[in-house]
């Protein structure tokens, strides 16, 4: 019906009809897609969300004498320097090397500071070569002194995403924000009907070379992003889970700090809020219909982040109208919701892009090729050395005690068997509590005699069918030295200690540095 060239001509003449994706939803609902396609030339979308897979290539220029930078740090954040002498890549999710600062100032913060025009400290180390003799550099730099600062984000703008909830009785800190225990809150990250890839679900107009709005300036799509997938469940043509992704590129020197922001997901890590707007040319009725999608028609799944596995159980299906209402019902209880992406900024971006096009300052591009819309599935990382399950651990015959046992006898059991923990069980062997040698010493000192008064009733456990790594993380998180292994009936099967784990897993698993 229309071509991109025709639309560009209209934009140049200043008479293109441009609307935001939200406005388009109303137009299509009122007049139908056929009429909407005739009336509207461009639909603008927008999103402002946390996108960990973002970063930038920086070129520092050559010093005199020159250096081949092997390790590079800006404000204490390490860059990837396995490139030519003075090139490096700063990744948004990289934590600070100073453990005191850790997650509070990472790669994303460096990127934001540079764009704000702040002076940052560059430290580089090298091994020294005949052509690059210098081994150490320490200096201050600003964005305008760099030769290039090219943002290249390997995965942005997820087409839809899971909605998070937590079924466990502990607060969880995740890349989906803070999740309160017992289904206490729900977090979601997609902008719904404003989100770029939801408005062109089969990539009829979006592809390699599409010009976009990126952090306040023009950017380009340089192909599909990592983890791009297409073979997913769809409703109204739109994926019900994460599917398509974009790789984006833009010039950091032209970016506006208003459309980009560093953040730290508490106890998870640094991330970058990236503002992206994509114009969708309304070439025909089909595309008009796609951009007419409403929050209510975009289905997504509430997933239990309480299960730290690749396949997390789906709690229920919902849609963005319900999520944006601020509350949602789960198992008969009303639960408050939080968007994690800024819906306010998403709207501002869609409006901003609309204005730029109306003022003839932003022309559309025909993609060199369209993003693949078929044949992409996600491959999991198979761990060839399979995870060891707790069940497979060789655990010694477990020594247990009963709640009515005398403290002195329990103390003897601990000493005789050279152990530090003793699970307390009922007559059927079901776990009731746990006692450590420290508890016993404390009890003796205070003159307590009943085990019931001494034992810890809220026991942190390991289940037989859990991978050892999951248990290792639990030991680390609660800073405990051992926990009982129980079967599905809560019967005690053994005990696993931090030492057993570290022997198996090799090293203690630290926090941070992990990015999903």
């Amino acid at each position, binding site marked *: 019906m229309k071509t991109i060239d025709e639309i560009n001509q209209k934009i140049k003449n200043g008479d293109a009809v441009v609307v935001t994706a939200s406005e388009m939803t109303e137009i299509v609902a009122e007049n139908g897609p056929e009429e909407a396609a005739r009336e509207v030339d461009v639909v603008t979308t927008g999103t*402002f969300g*946390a996108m960990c897979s973002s970063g930038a290539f920086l070129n520092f220029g050559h010093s005199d004498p020159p250096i081949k930078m092997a390790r590079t740090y800006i404000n204490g954040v390490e860059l990837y320097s396995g490139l030519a002498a003075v090139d490096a890549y700063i990744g948004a999710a990289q934590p600070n090397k100073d453990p005191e600062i850790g997650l509070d100032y990472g790669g994303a913060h460096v990127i934001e500071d540079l764009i704000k025009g702040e002076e940052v400290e560059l430290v580089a180390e090298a091994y020294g070569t005949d052509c690059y003799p210098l081994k150490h550099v320490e200096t201050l730099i600003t964005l305008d002194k760099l030769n290039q600062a090219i943002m290249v984000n390997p995965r942005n703008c997820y087409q839809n995403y899971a909605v998070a909830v937590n079924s466990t009785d502990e607060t969880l800190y995740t890349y989906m*924000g*803070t999740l*309160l225990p017992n289904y*206490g*809150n*729900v*977090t979601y990250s997609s902008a719904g009907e404003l989100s770029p890839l939801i408005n062109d679900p089969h990539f009829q107009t979006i592809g390699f070379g599409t010009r976009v709005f990126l952090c306040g300036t023009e950017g380009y799509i340089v192909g599909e992003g990592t983890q791009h997938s297409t073979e997913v469940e769809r409703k109204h043509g739109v994926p019900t889970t994460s599917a398509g992704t974009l790789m984006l590129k833009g010039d950091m020197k032209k970016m506006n700090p208003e459309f980009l*922001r*560093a*953040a*730290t*997901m*508490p106890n998870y890590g640094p*991330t970058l*809020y990236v503002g992206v707007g994509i114009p969708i040319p309304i070439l025909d009725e089909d595309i008009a219909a796609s951009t007419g999608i409403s929050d209510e028609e975009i289905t997504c799944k509430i997933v239990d982040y309480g299960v730290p596995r690749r396949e997390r159980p789906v709690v229920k299906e919902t849609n963005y109208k319900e999520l944006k209402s*601020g509350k949602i019902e789960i198992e008969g209880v009303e*639960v*408050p*919701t*939080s*968007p*994690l*992406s*800024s*819906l*306010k*900024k998403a*709207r501002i971006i869609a409006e901003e892009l609309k204005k730029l096009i109306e003022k003839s300052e932003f022309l559309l591009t025909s993609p060199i090729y369209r993003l693949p819309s078929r044949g992409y599935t996600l491959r999991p990382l198979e761990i060839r050395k399979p995870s060891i399950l707790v069940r497979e651990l060789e655990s010694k015959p477990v020594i247990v005690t009963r709640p009515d046992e005398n403290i002195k006898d329990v103390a003897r059991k601990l000493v005789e068997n050279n152990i530090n923990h003793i699970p307390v069980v009922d007559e059927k062997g079901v776990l009731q509590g746990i006692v450590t040698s420290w508890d016993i010493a404390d009890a003796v000192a205070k003159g307590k005699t009943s085990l019931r008064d001494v034992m810890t009733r809220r026991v942190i456990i390991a289940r037989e069918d859990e991978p050892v790594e999951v248990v290792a993380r639990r030991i680390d998180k609660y800073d405990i030295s051992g926990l009982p292994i129980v079967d599905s009936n809560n019967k005690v099967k053994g005990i696993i200690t931090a030492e057993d784990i570290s022997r198996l897993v090799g090293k203690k698993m630290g926090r941070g540095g992990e990015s999903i």
Partner: protein
Amino acid sequence: MKAWLRFLPSIIGKAIISEAIKRYDIEFNILRAHITPRGGKMLVEISGPEEKESIKFIEEQGIEVNPIIRVVKKDKDKCIDCGACISLCPVKAIKVEEDWTVEIDDQICIGCGFCAKSCPTKSIILFE
């Protein structure tokens, strides 16, 4: 009104607050409390017709009353209106406007600090 009550250890055992509630027509809400062997402080909300009289009484019993105007403050420039804080507030003090601007209602806030701890841009400051 909202106020911090500060008291010395010698007072902890005394039933000053329950006495004040008995004597005066007031509603008394404890929003937060930190009590240590060296004394303590409580964030409270006192309201009702005899608010002033009750405060005078509490002060006379040796408790320091520091009225507060604000419990929490959000830095408008740092906040990106992501809304991460909204669902964490136990008293629904955080709301969104029509244009998705996130606002904290200081009158409802009980200063639990949960939002401040979880804000990705550290935009929320709690007044102690």
